[in-house]
């Protein structure tokens, strides 16, 4: 099996699996006052310190969550509610047009139900938000802006956004800046920094930890309304019994992923460059989407290609039948592929967007994976383009 979908989820790292299993076997609620509780609490706090260390944050800034989607919801709704409460005029919510649905659907809900005025920030052909775009949008009425959110790296095309500059623009107007770093964390340096984002969403299972745990890094002093109410376990922002085993495994995965990232990034980028070059040799019409290879504006493990004249879901099915697993980008709840909103925002036509595949590499990727794809892609594209022609795809 050739797994080229690490951006969806990546295998658990051995050290994470070991930590996970060890803690799961032990009893203890981290909020209990007895010895078992203290033992669990110690694991949680050590894990918090590990995460804070790799993120350049204070341990108290790390709020554990149930994953990336919850982190995004907590940051956006929590910030919006808190800001509105403090200053009712702040209704504007600025987010990029290429956000993950965890962000887009959340702000759309705020718009539909909570009186927010949602504005989508344009991106360039590579999927990047320019600081000037944000500056112009902010300056239209800065006193009415509740928050800005721009992802650290794009989940489909892997474009790395200029987060530090964007945060600086927001801060010039006294506006808090959130970033969804679920794809970036563990691959490239993600740190809070002096002037960086005020809130950062990260998730464990994208870096070799378990599904169902993540964190929102919240800069000290930033006020969030909680989404869930209860025991107030995490700074009164997030309630629910702490997931001790998940948190321990998350910290173990994060420590390894971040320590290895510089070397691993170079290895993955070389593999990825090889993948793109050889696929384009086999399929000369294949178009790379997103930022150019070799630069810092692209995640090292991401290759996102359009195969003109083909439908992405035909390609996916034919590759799957050959044991090669990848993604068409966005899938709705019924499993139906829709043209990617990311590619459409980048200015691609609907047909171009429909004909795309994301190949994403991760810690278990090897040269043999690229070889298998290169071997299969020619006949697969030929078949899919026959089906595409029937569906009226021109391949132009």
């Amino acid at each position: 099996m050739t797994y080229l979908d690490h951006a969806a989820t990546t295998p658990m790292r051995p050290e994470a699996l070991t930590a996970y299993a060890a803690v799961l076997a032990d009893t203890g609620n981290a909020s209990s006052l007895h010895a078992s509780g203290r033992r669990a609490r110690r694991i949680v706090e050590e894990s918090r310190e590990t995460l804070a260390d790799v993120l350049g944050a204070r341990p108290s800034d790390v709020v554990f969550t149930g994953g990336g989607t919850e982190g995004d919801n907590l940051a956006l709704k929590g910030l919006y509610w808190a800001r509105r409460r403090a200053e009712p005029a702040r209704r504007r919510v600025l987010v990029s047009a290429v956000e993950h649905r965890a962000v887009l659907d959340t702000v759309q809900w705020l718009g539909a139900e909570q009186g927010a005025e949602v504005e989508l920030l344009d991106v360039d052909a590579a999927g990047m938000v320019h600081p000037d775009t944000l500056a112009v949008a902010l300056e239209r009425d800065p006193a009415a802006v509740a928050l800005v959110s721009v992802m650290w790296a794009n989940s489909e095309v892997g474009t790395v956004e200029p987060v530090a500059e964007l945060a600086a623009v927001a801060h010039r107007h006294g506006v808090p800046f959130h970033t969804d770093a679920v794809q970036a964390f563990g691959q490239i340096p993600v740190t809070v920094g002096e002037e960086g984002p005020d809130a950062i969403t990260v998730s464990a299972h994208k870096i070799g930890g378990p599904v169902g745990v993540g964190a929102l890094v919240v800069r000290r002093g930033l006020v969030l309304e909680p989404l869930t109410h209860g025991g107030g376990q995490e700074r009164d922002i997030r309630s629910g019994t702490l997931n001790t085993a998940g948190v321990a495994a998350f910290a173990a995965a994060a420590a390894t992923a971040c320590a290895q990232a510089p070397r691993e990034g170079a290895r993955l980028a070389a593999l990825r460059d090889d993948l793109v070059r050889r696929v384009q040799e086999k399929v000369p019409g294949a178009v790379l989407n997103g930022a150019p290879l070799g630069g810092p504006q692209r995640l090292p493990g991401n290759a996102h290609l359009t195969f003109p004249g083909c439908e992405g879901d035909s390609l996916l099915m034919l590759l799957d039948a050959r044991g090669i697993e990848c993604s068409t980008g966005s899938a709705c709840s019924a499993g139906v592929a829709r043209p990617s909103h990311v590619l459409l925002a980048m200015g691609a036509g609907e047909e171009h967007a429909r004909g795309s595949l994301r190949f994403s590499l991760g810690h278990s990727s090897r040269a043999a994976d690229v070889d298998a794809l290169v071997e299969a892609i020619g006949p697969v594209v030929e078949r899919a383009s026959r089906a595409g022609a029937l569906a009226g795809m021109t391949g132009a």
Partner: protein
Amino acid sequence: MRVLAAMSGGVDSAVAAARAVDAGHDVTGVHLALSRSPESDRTGARGCCTLEDARDARRAADVLGIPFYVWDLAERFETEVIDQFVESYAAGRTPNPCVRCNERIKFAAVLDRALALGFDAVVTGHHARLDLDGTLRRSVDPAKDQSYVLGTLRPEQLGAARFPLGDSTKAQVRREAAARGLAVADKPDSHDICFISGGDTGGWLRERIGSRPGPIVDSKSGQTLGEHDGTFAFTVGQRRGLRLGHPAPDGRPRYVLDISPVTSTVIVGPAEELDIRRLVADRAAWPHEGVVTCQAQVRAHGGVVAAEAEARGDDLVVTLAAPVRGTAAGQAVVLYDGDRVLGGGHIRVTAA
């Protein structure tokens, strides 16, 4: 063989796929997403258009251990089936959307795509038999026979189709599903039009066509017996729901005889005036020459009479040995020799 199994989420297509697996084929399950905004749960007796149906299909594929995908054909279905359904009603005809879906979606768009992608055949859960020589025959279960909705398919469409259920009754299919551990074994049959939620076809059409009031006129006396809101709410042969303001002069029940959308007039008359002895159909599939003695079926259930059929250019002219009642333009006529399907067409004109 590499086989694509169209899986609606119902018991029939699940068992059909299972039989294809047992036959040693390399089977891939595909659920067709036909609705642009699928409802999350099934309501009433709708067939295949909810997310719950997609989930049921996926679970059946899991049990069979076959790969499963969803193919989005919503746009195609809307233009080829739904829009034509509305236009047809607006023009005073009574379309059969299942016939249309088989002709344009399942055994056209899906089949063509499957063949292009390297599949050798498409398996469905239709209750009909397809012999090795390409002859389509009725199912052994007369109550569930679906050869009528397949009867207008051309030989090249049937050529790559497989119907593994034709030799079984529905009861046998359900028992087999239960024995195979398929959760859909006792899922209710679908009856209603899959894209009309709640089964209110008149209301659904009113939303799309709009209210166009007109008179209900008696064929015998020429008297206006009532008013209506739009001709689309009527089907030739319909008796109930006419809501006539005045009884007919002879006091006998009235049936819809004819619909004129241009003048928005519904003509009603006594039952015997519904009798049809001759009809002209657009020739969809009729690979025969000269006059062929056969039996004609003019609606999905019942309405089978002895007939003679003959192709004239693009028309198929059918003369019935005994009158049938309430046959409407837009329906399919399918011609049989015993249980063998000879071909069929779309009824354009009917005559007494």
